[in-house]
């Protein structure tokens, strides 16, 4: 049977734009500190003096006990997958990233499957959002042990962590 249709007349449209890049956003220096660590293959987290949780990348305030997370702790670059999702094969013309085709500009191979994951790095109490590399989608499971794939040339940038791969 399928979906019922709702046909309606269309009236004239008045066009307009809203430049969302025109806002003056402010951020904290925490990410600067985090990427400085990445340059030396160090994952920095913030430590909560109230509940002892370690959050990676660092945050200013603890979301549960609202204490200032002044402490710092370096956590392992090995960890456990707490959750994953799997894309269908990404073909040319299927996906847009910032208006660009990721296959056309060489970010993924034609037909490649992308596996976004949450990783809990050993010594941390948070999920870090990244991507699983060098793995067969059939083998991925919650609890899978992984380690960071570091960029060949470390630049002190978020791109220094290319993703994680199975140990």
């Amino acid at each position, binding site marked *: 049977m399928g979906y019922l249709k709702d046909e309606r007349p269309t*009236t*004239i*449209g008045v*066009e307009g*734009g809203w430049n*969302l890049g025109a806002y*003056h956003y402010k951020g*904290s*220096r925490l990410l600067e500190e985090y990427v400085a660590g990445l340059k030396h293959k160090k994952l920095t987290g913030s430590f909560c003096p109230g509940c002892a949780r370690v959050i990676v990348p660092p945050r200013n305030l603890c979301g549960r006990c609202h204490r200032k997370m002044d402490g710092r702790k370096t956590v392992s670059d090995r960890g456990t997958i707490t959750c994953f999702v799997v894309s269908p094969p990404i073909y040319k013309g299927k996906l847009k990233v910032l208006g660009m085709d990721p296959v056309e500009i060489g970010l993924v191979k034609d037909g490649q499957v992308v596996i976004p994951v949450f990783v809990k790095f050993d010594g941390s109490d948070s999920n870090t959002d990244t991507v699983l590399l060098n793995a067969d989608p059939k083998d991925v499971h919650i609890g899978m042990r992984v380690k960071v794939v570091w960029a060949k040339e470390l630049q002190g940038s978020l791109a220094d962590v290319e993703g994680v791969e199975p140990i």
Partner: protein
Amino acid sequence: MEGKSEIVEVKTFPFPAGFNWAVGPMMERFIRTLAGRKVLGARCPGCGYTYVPPRSRCGQCQAAIAEKDVVELSGKGTLISYTNAHVAPDGNGNLKDLEKPIVVGAVKLEDADSVLFMPVEGVKPQDLKIGLAVKVRWREETKGAVADICCFEPVG
């Protein structure tokens, strides 16, 4: 306090979100009729208040206003207030200086109760006054678009 601020300015780049607002049937009729150099209004069947452009609900008495309540107006009116604008938005969150100031007027059309805000041209600054009789100046080629009304100008 340390010398370095804990807050950093976030670099952004242009990220335009586009909109295309549907105007509804009453406003559509108003816009299309501009092609024939006519200005339409709508007279509330409940209280007689006349809106320009026409609309489908009266803000004064809450009566529904229908297509049959649409009336044709003369396009002439009276300036009831005005201002000189020296700057305009630059589309990037800031203001830019205009080459020469423009006059924006509040015009009450004959037989209408609501007010249109439009540029007023063809009048010397010393002649600008509340109560000035004005009329629509049409774009050379009208095609049924809001921009068909170029501005208002003094009558005669």
